[in-house]
Structures are given as structure tokens and as C-alpha cells.
């Protein structure tokens, strides 16, 4: 698991001006730090779709936004993400917490490449949000990497570099609760 403090420091290293998002249990610690931070402004939204359009506006205005949402919230944001970030080629770094990841790892071993079906998607011991996360990101044209623990925090800077170079968004999937 990664420390929220290290993630915040990495965001500052990349001159982030605004974090827009909605908290969940995984990101709660980072939201808590951001709520009192003097350098980065936290913009709380009522629904995740708002976050991506606000981020696009901030980028047009010359700022460096980051969106911080749960994978479920990313699904909700589909048209907002497509119609603003993708269409405008905003080099946005998205931090997406990966609800259900722990159960997903066990299922992958069991499934051995089996396609998703209705039975799997409705299983009580799995989280369907996790089952469709990576496939959705691929379908929506959002390249991603993983942030599992402290040693992965530097990937945030790598994503900023990649986003800037290619003029496209990148996501980091945060697989465990921040501490």
C-alpha cells in the first residue's frame, strides 16, 4: 500500500495546481491531506463526470489538474471523459482507485482467461466494478499503469511525462487503500 503523503509530494513535484474528485475509502487519506494543503486546491464535485470537464477547463486556463476518483466513478464519467479530455487531448493524469482489486486477483487465477459472462458479473464473491475496469479503460482509450505501494509512487511523474509528450491522458490504478 502507498502512503498518501508520498503521493501528495509527487503531485507537488509535478506542479499540480488542482485535484478534482470524490473520495472513497482508498483515497480518504489523500483527500484529508488535500483538504488542508496550501499548495494544491481540492475541488470537490457532486458526481465524477463533473470532475473531468472541470479538469479540461482548468487545463485550458493554464493550470495542472489531476482527477482522483474510484473506478465506479470513472464509469459514470464516460461521456464527460470522452467529450472533454479525449476530444481536447488534455494531458491529464487520472488517479483511479481500484475497488474490488483484491478479489479480482484470485478470480484471474481461477478463470484462466475465461471471458466475462453474466454469471461471473453477478457473483457475490466478486466485484463487477473490478472485473470491467481494465477492459473499460482500454475501450475508452485511456492508457494505465498500477500503483500498488510506495515504490510505485514515482510512476506518477512518469505518467505526467508521458501525458505531456503524447498529449493524451494517463491513468494510475491505485490497487490498495492509501495509508
Amino acid at each position, binding site marked *: 500500500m502507498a502512503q498518501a503523503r508520498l503521493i501528495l509530494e509527487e503531485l507537488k513535484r509535478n506542479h499540480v495546481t*488542482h485535484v478534482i474528485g470524490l473520495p472513497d475509502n482508498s483515497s480518504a487519506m489523500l483527500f484529508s491531506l488535500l483538504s488542508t494543503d496550501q499548495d494544491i486546491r481540492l475541488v470537490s464535485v*457532486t458526481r465524477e463526470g*463533473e470532475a473531468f470537464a472541470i479538469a479540461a*477547463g482548468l487545463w485550458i486556463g493554464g493550470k495542472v489538474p489531476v482527477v482522483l476518483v474510484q473506478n465506479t466513478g470513472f464509469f459514470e464519467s464516460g461521456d464527460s471523459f470522452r467529450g472533454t479530455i479525449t476530444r481536447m487531448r488534455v494531458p491529464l493524469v487520472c488517479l483511479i482507485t481500484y475497488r474490488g482489486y483484491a478479489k479480482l486477483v484470485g478470480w484471474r487465477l481461477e478463470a484462466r482467461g475465461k471471458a466475462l459472462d453474466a454469471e461471473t458479473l453477478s457473483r457475490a464473491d466478486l466485484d463487477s466494478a473490478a472485473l470491467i475496469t481494465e477492459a473499460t479503460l482500454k475501450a475508452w482509450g485511456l492508457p494505465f499503469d498500477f500503483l500498488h505501494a510506495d515504490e510505485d509512487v514515482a510512476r506518477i511523474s512518469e505518467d505526467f511525462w508521458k501525458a505531456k509528450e503524447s498529449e493524451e491522458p494517463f491513468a494510475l490504478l491505485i490497487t490498495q487503500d492509501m495509508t
Partner: protein
Amino acid sequence: MLTKHELLEPLARLRGNAVVITCMGVTRPWASYSESELDFASADSAMGHTADLALGIALARPQRKVICLNGDGSMLMTLGTLVTAVQAAAKNFFLFVIQNDIYEITGNQPIPGAGQVDFAALARGAGFSRIYSFDDANSYATSLPEVLSGAGPVLAVVKVEPGSEGPISRSEREASNYLKVSLADWGRRMRRALNTRDPTN
């Protein structure tokens, strides 16, 4: 009710150096009053998220007014934005809800709550303190200088006549400059313009 001309002409005269974000039924008409590089057509974009985009620009450039000409159908899609704008204390954010009670672009179907929905009341409930409602051209033209002065966020509901704008595209065939290029190209252009004009803001 106002005509689109009665809505847009005074606004074009008084906008000064404000950013103006348009969507839906006023996108093309606005371009006949303004060709500023600080105009942005939220067309071929995200459905219902025009006000969010405008709010983002307002937060990025707090010294510059940002006027958003949002449709009533678009506003209904993201009512939470009213709460977010107040929470964000965007003092330079001027949100106009153009209420014609129809989805004009798709053939004038009524919006949910047509004739009943009260955007001023919704804004009041969200915490807006400066709220205006207009349904005649004279009071609108007389009050517009006051609407655009002072601190926001401001919400202005303007009732306009139903129009007949068809689907909006982005292509060379469009007469409006801001519709001739892609969303990405216009976004970069506006970003350059804002950064050049407000280098320290």
C-alpha cells in the same frame, strides 16, 4: 420571452474581455455577434457538461470573468454543478440558463419539467446568492450591467423563444470560426490566448 437576438446582442456589447462558453441552440447565433478567441463552443463535446468546463476555466483564471450560456436541457443533466460552483466559490463565474423548455437541437422535444422547472429556485437551494430571472427583453437589457458586475457565482435564467437550430458539427462547412476546427485545436488556441493575456494570473 426574448428572442436569441435580444439575449445575445446586449451580452456581446457588455462582455468586455470575458470568456464566453456556448452550447446547443446559441452556439451558432453567438458567432454572428463575436469572433473572439476567448469564445468557446462546447459542441462535439460532453453532453451536459458545458457549465463544468466553464467552471474549470473560471477556477483557473480567477481575475477574468467567465460567462457560460448553458441550455436548460444541459443544465438538467448536471444539476450538481450548481452546488459545486457555490462550494468552489467561483466569484468570476456567470452562469446563464437559456430556458426555452425544449431540446432544440434534436427537434424541439420538451425537456422534462417543461413549463414547471424553476432553475432560480434550484440555484437558491444550491446556495447561489445572486440570482436573476428574465422573461422580457427590456428588463434583461436594463439589468444586464448589474448582472455582470460584482462577485459571483451568478445565475441568470433567461426565457427565450423556441428556435430551430439543427445538429451542430465541427467542420469547414460551419460558418462560425470556432466550429471550423476540432475541439482539441480550439482548446489549444484558447489556452494560448489566456496564457498570453494573463501570464501571471
